[in-house]
């Protein structure tokens, strides 16, 4: 099914080189300082970053490198101490709470390490949480079909495996047809086989829907599946590389 036409920010085809694409999400000189007791902790220390339309980006770094902080700021869950954030031409840096809410509501899809499903809702209803409030959403059934869970619509999270729960979370994230999909260690809580399955779904969503996708991971082999890889450490960007070819998720090994 060709869903690309629904995506405002999507571009012609995934085959286009990443470098040629425009940035959909960008930040400049980003700093985030948390005060913990007597000490200031610099979670981000001058990060310049961009996520380009339609690309699949992996943000690689060890635990404590500032990946999640960066993702939270890019996703409008947190605000920077310094620096500027842009979504397309729109600046998010000093956006008010309701503007950030609208941004998340209409443009961002989140996938979390621990799925964050509402335990009292079925798979279909967890997706409906989003479709109830989005402007032009997919049907929950359609979104769940995209992640291969058409048969498990009425199961509660506790009745699903970890991989299935994560796929519900992905269906929930894409159901609003987001401009960007931000995934925080989406395979972190899963075994290898299930992790591959989840990555395949993310890969397919990116290729078919053209949704710009950023995946945070500390798991280096996953980087092979990306168009671009940004490496983070101690709150700074250590390097950015572009993969000549993007590996298939099913070919990954770790």
């Amino acid at each position, binding site marked *: 099914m060709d869903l690309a036409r629904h995506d405002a920010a999507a571009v012609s085809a995934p085959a286009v080189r990443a470098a040629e694409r425009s940035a959909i999400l960008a930040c400049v000189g980003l700093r985030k300082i948390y005060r913990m007791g007597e000490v200031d902790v610099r979670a981000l220390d001058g990060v310049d970053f961009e996520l380009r339309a339609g690309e699949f980006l992996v943000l690689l770094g060890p635990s404590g490198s500032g990946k999640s902080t960066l993702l939270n700021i890019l996703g409008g*869950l947190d605000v920077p101490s310094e620096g500027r954030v842009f979504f397309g031409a729109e600046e998010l840096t000093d956006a008010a709470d309701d503007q950030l809410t609208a941004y998340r*509501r209409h443009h961002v899809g989140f996938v979390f390490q621990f799925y964050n499903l509402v335990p009292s809702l079925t798979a279909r209803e967890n997706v409906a949480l989003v479709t109830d409030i989005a402007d032009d959403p997919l049907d929950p059934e359609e979104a769940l079909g995209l992640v291969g869970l058409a048969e498990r619509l009425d199961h509660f999270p506790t009745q699903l495996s970890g991989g299935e729960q994560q796929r519900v979370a992905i269906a929930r*994230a894409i159901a609003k047809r987001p401009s960007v999909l931000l995934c925080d260690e989406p395979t972190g809580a899963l075994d290898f086989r299930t992790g591959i399955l989840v990555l395949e779904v993310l890969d397919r969503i990116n290729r078919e829907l053209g949704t710009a996708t950023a995946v945070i991971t500390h798991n280096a082999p996953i980087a092979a599946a990306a168009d671009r890889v940004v490496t983070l450490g101690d709150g700074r960007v250590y390097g950015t590389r572009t993969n000549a070819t993007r590996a298939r998720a099913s070919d990954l090994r770790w």
Partner: protein
Amino acid sequence: MWLNALNRKLLRETRTLKGQIFTIAVVLASGIVCFIALRGTYASLLASELDYYDRFRFADVFAQAERVPETLARRVEALPGVATVQTRVAKDVTLPIEGLSHPAYGRMLSLPPSGVPTTNAIYLKKGRLPERDDEVVLLEAFAEAYGLEPGHHVPVVVNGKRRSFRIAGIALSPEFVYAIRPGALVDDPKRHTVLWMQRSALATAFQLGGAFDDVSLKLAPGASEKSVREGLDRLLAPFGGNGSIARKDQISNRIVSQELDQLGVLSTMVPAVFVGVTAFLVNLVLGRMIRLQRPEIATLKAIGYSNVEIGRHYLGLVFVVLLPGSVLGLAGGLMLGHFVLALYGTTFRFPNLEFNLTAGLVATAVVVSAVAALAGAWGAVRSAVRLPPAEAMQPPAPARYRRSVVERLGVSALIGTSGMMVLREITRRPFRTLLSSFGIAGAISLLILSHFGLDSLISYFEGTFRREQRQDLAVVFAKPVAPGVVAELARVPGVLTAEGLRAVPVRIRYEHRARDSVMMGLPRPNTLRRLVGHGGPEVAVPADGVVLTQTLGDVLGLRIGDRPEVEVREGDRRTVRPVVVGFVDESVGMSIYAQAGTLAALEGDLGAVSSVLLKVDPLRTAQVDAQLRRSPSIIDVSDARGDMQRMLDMNTSFMNVWTAISIALSAGVVFGVVYNNARIGLAARARDLASLRVLGFTRGEISWILLGNQALEVALAIPVGLWLGRAWARQFMSTVDQETFRWQVAIAPRTYLLSVVVTLFAAAASALWVRRSLDTLDLVAVLKARE
């Protein structure tokens, strides 16, 4: 689409919280039940009263005299501000009813020839108006007490002659909504009645042709009651008028008004407890729910739900509580309201007493409950709304425990590690412990509040019988008689002591303040009617000067040595200025006491008695009764102890029902507070407790760790609740007309005990209920589960 995913989430979660939601709904419903029942009864009684008074032209001013020529009525009518005047003949009679130890007391009132008085019309419930001289209309309560119907006959001693009257009709009157015989403590439908008959017949029996001895007025709108009364008193004075009274002092109206005032206060005081506890419980449960749902809140925010939407979602729980609580409360309130009103209906007789559930009442109950629950929810919901999404992603900071001051005192050795866990849990959340205790204390105070009235009354009677009124019988005469009657009665076989009393209506003035009062002449020695000062010492009646009840002294601002002006309101109407030599501490009435001799001098006669107090050999009571029944001049024989017993007997069924209701309501609150606290404690600490079970702790030991908190809360609540109940009772009494009653609030040990026992039972029941969950704690599952 109201059943969106978020609302489904709410509904599913309420299912898992059903026990907690149910207990909160019950507490909320209890508040509504009390409010609807009490306030509804209050409003219904008030509406019935106003309507009754209006339709049956209840008078504004009442006065009595001895014999007033009918022509004076015109002059009364001509007083500025008087709208209508109704004169009549009103006389005391007795009814020697078969099987009654003393004759019943009756007030016989004349009806005008038309049968329809311009004031104080009667409401004929059965039969018709009297058409013959030997027909009467009888007060309903008395007729019911003896199963009398129109066509039956009643024996009446009229002016010393025994006659038999045919009952033509049975009626109610706005003058006798609460019918109580003068000097009695409570109403007694078997021993007091009112009879209406044609004026000509009654006037003939008492030689009052062309004259009246009782008059009542309606005032024109805007008229000055004070100046009308002054004018009326002036006109009646030469004819033995002893001072008019205003509607507010008319005995039936005064008692109904007092009861209404009390009911009005009660109808806001009692629901307040439930409202407070509801708010607290909603806060407790919702607060916990929100803490547990941090990750879900974070997710909702991440996927774009606004703060308003999230706030509304959690506030939805309030409506889940409010809906069943309101339905239950309104249904229960309606039932209890009908019941309470029906109980009032047996004492307060209105033509149409219907429980009126107005939209305003329902709206107030529901809105106040909703506001309370929302207020309780507000803090918890605000914390959910304020939670920054990135922070909500992180697990909450672990609970911080620290060594408390108590521990530093070295109790740790005494209470052991388990005790320490309980103690630290409490010191970590002292405010919650205090609020919980306060909620339970509120329930305890409700129980005390529902019982203190009767306790105080019994204590008053017992105290009065022990100290002040030590007679067995009080014999009252139709009019003052020669003092020789005391010696006569003393000679009746079985009478141990007889002492005469004289009561004279007076008006007492000091500076600009004045009150109508009764001056009592006491014999010397006065062993049966004693005067007792503050704290219990007997006050001797001085040969010169007067003793006042403390209330009267306070109202007039009198001190010992002052000389108020006392105007006698009968006979020659002399005015004297006796010196105040002391005060007595009596709960009821505003009286002045002097020696009989002093009073005789004031009246300018050789002394007379209006009543005689008797101490009777208990084995010969029947004989004495028989003797007293034969004397036509005796209008009433009262037996205060018997009155008290009758009152208690009459109140027993009412009190039993009220006790059951108050126990149910209070137990509901205690159960709700303990249950919710324990459930939340369990949810928060299941992991710790399961770990302890893994370490080898028994079920009993972990139960103590969980329920120890609740036990301490209850232990703290009990003394606070008992104190609060007493304080509340005092506050309540202070709203009662201080001039008429000045009860000391007395709470029987029985009542304290009942409150404590009910609380302990309710707390134990809810603790056991929660303990069942501890017994089935799945160790493995709990240890695996993430908080």
